[in-house]
């Protein structure tokens, strides 16, 4: 594949569409606004199509493993194929079999993994909140106030907890968010100008 096809054409498409979208946001020129809206609709379609790559990637990875007898790959493939088949048979996502399967498998497993976060937080509290100096004492103090202030038991800490969230937390958040916003803007500009080309699978010079 020539360099033009692999590099310059994708860059050209990206830059043109990117700046076109920016123009559509700011300008009142009807053709620019209308085409920018159409590009938005197309990008919604493309994002959806990208989801379709997922099953192929899973099949490519897990069929060989399933053939070797990996039980987890077999279960995964059964689920990947089984759920759409179930939908096609029942014709609806609100049907009892489909809903039951979703609740028993996806919802149950999802909730179970998320619940592990609580144990991780306890492990983090145990390990990380050690009072070594004044800074760590302040951090621990803030953690205690916030933990107790957000629940009925720690009613006395409520106003202090609300103040901590509303004032120092918001101030710190806004400061970091400002930096992130600027960084994001500059990075996006680098992509649009073709300076940043990692998405083309170009390996840098380091």
């Amino acid at each position, binding site marked *: 594949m020539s360099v033009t096809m692999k590099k310059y054409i994708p860059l050209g498409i990206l830059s043109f569409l990117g700046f076109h979208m920016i123009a559509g946001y700011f300008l009142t020129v009807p053709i620019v606004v209308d085409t920018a809206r159409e590009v938005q609709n197309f990008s919604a379609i493309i994002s959806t199509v990208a989801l379709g790559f*997922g099953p192929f990637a899973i099949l490519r990875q897990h069929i060989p493993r399933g053939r070797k007898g990996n039980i987890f790959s077999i279960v995964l493939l059964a689920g990947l194929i089984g759920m759409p088949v179930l939908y096609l048979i029942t014709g609806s996502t609100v049907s009892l079999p489909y809903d039951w399967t979703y609740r028993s498998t996806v919802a149950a497993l999802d909730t179970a*993994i998320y619940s592990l976060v609580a144990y*991780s*937080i306890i492990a983090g509290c145990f390990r990380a909140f050690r009072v070594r100096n004044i800074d760590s004492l302040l951090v621990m103090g803030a953690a205690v106030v916030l933990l107790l202030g957000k629940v009925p038991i720690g009613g006395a800490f409520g106003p202090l907890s609300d103040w901590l969230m509303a004032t120092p937390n918001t101030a710190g958040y806004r400061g*970091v968010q400002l930096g992130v916003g600027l960084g994001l803007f500059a990075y996006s*500009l680098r992509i649009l100008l073709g300076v940043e080309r990692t998405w083309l699978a170009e390996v840098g010079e380091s």
Partner: protein
Amino acid sequence: MSFVKTGKISVFLLFALCFAIITFTLYLAKKREKPIKLRSIAGVVAIEEGIGRSVELGKPFAVDLHTSGLTGVDGVVALSYLSYSAKKAALAGCDYVVGIGAPEVVPVAEDIVRTAYASGPKPEMFNASRMIQYISPVQFAYTGGWIGLVGREKPGAILIAGSMGAEAMLIGEAGQMVGSIQIASASSITNIPFFITSCDYVIIGEEHYVGAAVVSGDRVQLGCILGQDYWKILTLALIVVGALMATLGLKDLGDILKI
């Protein structure tokens, strides 16, 4: 009839100014003899240390691209870190594993890692089916898969480069439990406390994007950082002036910015 939409004229002018500053510094950086010097970011320096540790232990270096896809900037930034770490790992002859959640990233990541190892001293080390692990685009399904991967592989070091949600604590603890050095680079501010408690190095906020320019090794990208800093100074000046004016009861600046 106005060329620019009403209510967006000020923002358009500010955007144009920012664009001009950054483009100018890109041009300056290209013309300069020496690259622009930035302060070192500990997390970026630690990537090479982590690879060295992995080689010593005979363990892989793991990269978590998470579920960030190419539709968002964070996914593209993660690829910058992937590219850098893959190149360093290939040069060191280190084993390498990438966890991917977004399907469209799989071919790009595979290409990046393959190219990195192909230009390294041991191209035969590259093994797509082992190194490129597509897990799941679903948040907690990915997390479960990543915890399993880390538990099996026990990497010497982990680079957490993708954007993530509430599962950050789980991801961090998974690496903690196997004794890996962890370098977390995430722009999500909410996850900063979780990464600080569970990771050895954290690249916070704006450093995430600056680090991507640093690891690219491209002097033109470093020029962009300079432009970003100039623009930040202007923004801070605007904030200070605006805050003073608001304190004095003057709403003119706010009204100008709403034009």
